[in-house]
């Protein structure tokens, strides 16, 4: 007899993604960024991004300095390339922490319900009532500046929103009979949450995660722009924008390239997030 095997959701998702032109565009850019992150040292050594050369200051983009140099004579191309690492690290790092914390909190609230849910929701209410940028600034003020602190502060701000969304998604799954059925089979609380609830909301987790990554990258750059994220001489897009801002009227290329990378990255991730949502639920396509 012919062996029948249903397509897993991942295969279905993959098939839908490669038939979506916008998704292909977004994935191409993301792939390029990932390659840059991995091979940054091979493309151009890190030393070029931080070594100052006063003789070469304010060189316009040319064949030896593709993106020009800044007021200290540092190569802007090297800084942009190595800045990709920092920006994506901040974005993915904080979004991952927020996703893990948010999923745990949200799924637990939805699964246990009753008092547990009530307490968790009130805590989330309080958490979300604090303006996130202010809290982020306060945390950095408390912990000091640096990339790990930035990641933590950003994750702290993003967690309650994540938890809320996941709670809503998990709530509709938790009331279904197969959860009751798992209890009847003798599964433990942890197992039901991890094994039954999370896989059924994995699409929400991934979509939320993706949207969060782009938001966190932008927010991380904002912090660096304000001087609270990556510290000089670390190359970071937001920090580069802040430095370039002083001279952009005469040397607009100083803000053009990091700004372009930042915008393009956020755009690609957002488009990919949309494509993911369409891929998980084709019925939604073209609606939102």
């Amino acid at each position: 007899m012919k062996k029948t095997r249903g397509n897993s959701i991942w295969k279905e998702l993959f098939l839908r993604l490669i038939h979506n032109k916008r998704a292909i565009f977004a994935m191409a850019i993301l792939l390029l960024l990932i390659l840059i992150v991995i091979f940054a040292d091979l493309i151009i050594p890190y030393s070029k991004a931080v070594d100052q050369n006063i003789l070469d200051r304010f060189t316009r983009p040319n064949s030896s300095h593709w993106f020009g140099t800044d007021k200290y004579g540092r190569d802007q191309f090297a800084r942009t390339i190595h800045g990709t690492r920092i920006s994506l690290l901040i974005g993915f790092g904080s979004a991952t922490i927020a996703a893990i914390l948010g999923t745990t909190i949200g799924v637990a609230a939805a699964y246990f319900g009753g008092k547990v849910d009530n307490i968790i929701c009130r805590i989330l209410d309080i958490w979300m009532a604090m303006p996130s940028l202010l809290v982020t600034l306060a945390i950095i003020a408390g912990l000091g500046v640096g990339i790990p602190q930035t990641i933590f502060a950003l994750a702290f701000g993003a967690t309650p929103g994540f938890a809320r969304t996941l709670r809503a998604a998990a709530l509709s799954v938790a009331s279904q009979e197969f959860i009751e059925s798992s209890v009847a089979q003798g599964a433990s609380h942890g197992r039901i949450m991890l094994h039954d609830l999370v896989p059924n909301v994995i699409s929400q987790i991934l979509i939320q995660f993706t949207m969060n990554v782009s938001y966190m990258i932008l927010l991380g750059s904002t912090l660096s722009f304000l001087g609270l994220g990556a510290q000089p001489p670390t190359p970071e897009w937001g920090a580069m924008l802040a430095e370039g801002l002083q001279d952009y009227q005469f040397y607009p290329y100083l803000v053009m390239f990091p700004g372009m990378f930042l915008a393009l990255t956020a755009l690609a991730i957002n488009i990919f997030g949309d494509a993911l949502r369409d891929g998980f639920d084709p019925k939604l396509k073209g609606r939102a």
Partner: protein
Amino acid sequence: MSEKLLEIKDLKVRYVVGKEVSEAVNGISLTLNKGETLGLVGETGAGKTTTALSIMNMLPQYVSRAEGEILFHGKNVLKMKNHELRKIRGKQISMVFQDPMTSLNPVYRVGEQIGEVLSLHEGKMPKEELRKRVGEILEMVGIPAARQDEYPHQFSGGMKQRVIIAIAIACRPELLIADEPTTALDVTIQAQVLDMMQELRDSLNSSILMITHDLGIVASFCDKVAIMYAGEIVEYGTLEDIFDRTKAHHPYTEGLFNAIPNLNVITPRLNPIHGLTPDPTELPKGCKFHPRCPYATDACKEGAVPVLTEGEHSIMCRRVKDRFKQAEKEEQA
């Protein structure tokens, strides 16, 4: 006499939501022996599912209060710790749920879902062996073993119900609770599923608690019958006791049988029991059936109702007192 597997003693379950107290089960007692099939019959809201859930101690935590005892192998299920319960659930007692459409997890292949119970209760085993076991269990419920790699959405309703039954019987439970297993299925599939369950019962020698509101299923499937009304068992007996219409019955049972249309008689109108199931937050005093009972007297409106027993047949009604006595006299004469 055969061994007692399950004994429910004076079980009371209340649902408390805010200030509303809903009296779902009001002091029922039941015994189920090994290898027996008990049909629990009653209309919607009679407390059948609540009874079933209490047997597995799966009542919703925050809103329910259960009193009384449910002894499974002599141990009180209601007093068990979570880890003890987990060992029993799925292994010794398992449950088939009402709606096959939502009882399977949509993101796992059906084989994985059957394998899950096996590995939960029988420890880890090699992948090959697990696949083989899962295949055997699927074949038992009449599904080709090769279909274990399909997802629930690739199965029809009847097939899904078979898969759910397969999950329930995977560990050869001593007690299978079937909560209206055929309600969501059409008649031909119902017959198939019931036939299959009957075969399984005979081959596994499990006891079955069959919850249904279909007297036809009871007649073809059960050894004992309990009729539930408003959280009480109003009549209990062997299949013959209940279905023999010459015997004395509770007026509610009579009403149920009268409501079945007779194929040999032209029936212009069906003959329902008038009135509605009482609101469980405001149960009538005295006999709970009296507002709908054609024989109700003033005596029925107050006080406790006696349970009259004759052999294994018991009825919770004042009225049958005379008829039981009559029957005794006739026997003596």
